């Protein structure tokens, strides 16, 4: 056998091996993808089944359905003020996202474009604070919220506790660190000539911020807006401890009260979970690109 033939054989052998490896990889990924989707799919499946049917079946939830309908959703919707909980979430999330991006873009602008001695220190205070587990500060923070007076248009009980304003404040504060970090890194990559050109044209500092820098940062801001919306929507901790249990809680924290009400009926519990999960999943599926960009900007510098 000539050397050429041996080489040729080797290549086909390699190619077959590579193909086998690739098939193995796909099998691994498909199995894993199924395991990953299972808890969600099962919650969806359960939420569509009448509870009576599961109980009557000797194999319980491990059975094929005779009926699938939206009854659980309707009964939850009618029994609970679900629309109100969604509304609470919106009232907290939307202002918090806008405020966070506004403040952190100004901060990042100042930090990245006007180098002063302490800019690194500022960034460090922010990012370090952002990494702190919220449980470290919750006890004194809650005391402040319970005792610090807040005047009427901002609060209906004269305090920060149990107020949307209070929750917006803590979300904005906590998220500003991360966003400032990401945006200042992003702004550092913008060309300095553009800003200098604007200055030569006589633009003031705010004109530069609003007309030059902000438009250039649109991709980063869009990505951060997506991430922030989901993070703040998903918050459970602050809403749990800075609100009295009740009608003012956003949907995730309201789940905690609802779980008591549906303790005996897992199908309704499943329906509530799906209802709480759907907005973020939909947002993610539509704006997937922004998510990845946002996290990428946060993780890799420039």
């Amino acid at each position, binding site marked *: 056998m000539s050397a050429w033939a041996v080489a040729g054989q080797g290549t086909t052998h390699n190619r077959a091996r590579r193909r086998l490896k690739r098939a193995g990889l796909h099998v691994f990924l498909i199995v894993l993808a199924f395991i990953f989707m299972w808890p969600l799919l099962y919650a969806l499946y359960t939420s569509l089944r009448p509870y009576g049917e599961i109980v009557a079946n000797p194999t319980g939830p491990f059975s094929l359905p005779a009926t699938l309908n939206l009854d659980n959703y309707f009964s939850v919707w009618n029994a609970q003020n679900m629309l109100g909980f969604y509304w609470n979430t919106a009232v907290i999330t939307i202002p918090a996202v806008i405020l966070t991006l506004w403040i952190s873009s100004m901060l990042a602008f100042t930090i990245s474009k006007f180098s002063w001695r302490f800019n690194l220190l500022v960034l460090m205070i922010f990012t370090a604070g952002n990494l702190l587990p919220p449980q470290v500060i919750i006890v004194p923070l809650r005391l402040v919220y319970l005792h610090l007076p807040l005047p009427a248009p901002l609060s209906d009980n004269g305090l920060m506790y149990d107020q949307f304003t209070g929750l917006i404040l803590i979300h904005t504060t906590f998220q500003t660190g991360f966003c400032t970090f990401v945006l200042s890194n992003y702004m550092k990559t913008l060309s300095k000539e553009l800003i200098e050109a604007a200055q030569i044209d006589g633009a003031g500092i705010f004109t530069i911020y609003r007309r030059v820098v902000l438009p250039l940062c649109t991709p980063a801001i869009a990505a951060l807006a997506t991430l922030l919306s989901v993070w703040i929507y998903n918050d*459970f901790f602050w809403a749990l*401890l800075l609100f009295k249990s009740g009608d003012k809680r956003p949907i995730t924290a309201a789940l905690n009260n609802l779980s008591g009400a549906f303790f005996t009926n897992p199908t309704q519990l499943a329906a509530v979970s799906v209802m709480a999960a759907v907005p973020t999943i939909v947002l993610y599926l539509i704006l997937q690109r922004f998510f990845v960009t946002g996290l990428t900007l946060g993780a890799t510098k420039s």
Partner: protein
Amino acid sequence: MSEIEPKALTPAPATTAGAGVVAPAGRRRHYSVLTRRDKVLLALMVGVPLSIFFVLIWGMALVSVVLSFTDWQGQGPLNFVGLKNYTYLIQSYPAFWPALSHNILWLLSFICFATPMGILLAVCLDRPLRASGLYQTIFFTPVVLSLAVVGFIWELQYSPLAGNGFIDSVLAATGLVKGNATPDWLGDPSINIWAVIVAASWRHIGYIMILYLAGLKSVDPSLREAAAIDGANERQTFFYVVFPVMAPINVVIVVVTVIESLRAFDIAYIINHGKNGLELLSTLITNNSISEASLIGFGSAIAVVLLLISLVPIVLYLTRVMRSEEQ
């Protein structure tokens, strides 16, 4: 902070060491463009949010430290008791060591399983592969769910047979375990922490995958080509070429993993308020000082322990940022 703020807000002269990153020459002219009004506005732009942040985050952390030396219960004057809270916590409080060991178990499980799994997925999905995007979407989906929702979704899996939990129903229906012997995944204090860690890993894996994918995409492809020309196989290329140049992202991954394990709260709280096998430092803080008792001094001592542990990854992260900033 108020002492250094005025200095901080004055634009640094170009010659200071702190401004080493920027080209010195053009800068001086640059600043002279700023009017007095601009300077005041800039100072406000930075000063106001920074002060709020400082008071609400670091100020509160400091107050926690002070309160931890008192026996305050929410009323009356502050009574300083020295290290009494800490000695009681370490020597006599029965939930402290279980909570600490659960946090460590959580961290170790993340470090040994969830994080490497996320990295493995990222490496698998980084190459040209059919449906790579679809896989990414699926693995990342749990990350966009609230941890509270994650708790409920997994409760449907883990509930006991009588509560129609899925896993136990399968075990009983297939005859693998007798109906009366199916494990109570969330109620049995010897196993429930594992059940919760599995649920948390479900979310953590996708998070790490996306972060790592971002890092892999930023690796210079010519490095890999060079390694391939030198005859390195895929594994060698990853461990000897890609992994080392990913050092910055590896630090991020470690920090995220540690911080997420220390922040663990929501799932345990949803399941049983962090008791009966699910004690965590975070739930001890809220249970002692807010939800069940108002032992503010004692809860603060636990918060300080959590603060001290959290400072380790935070300092690690900051030194990383510092170093890359200096370069």
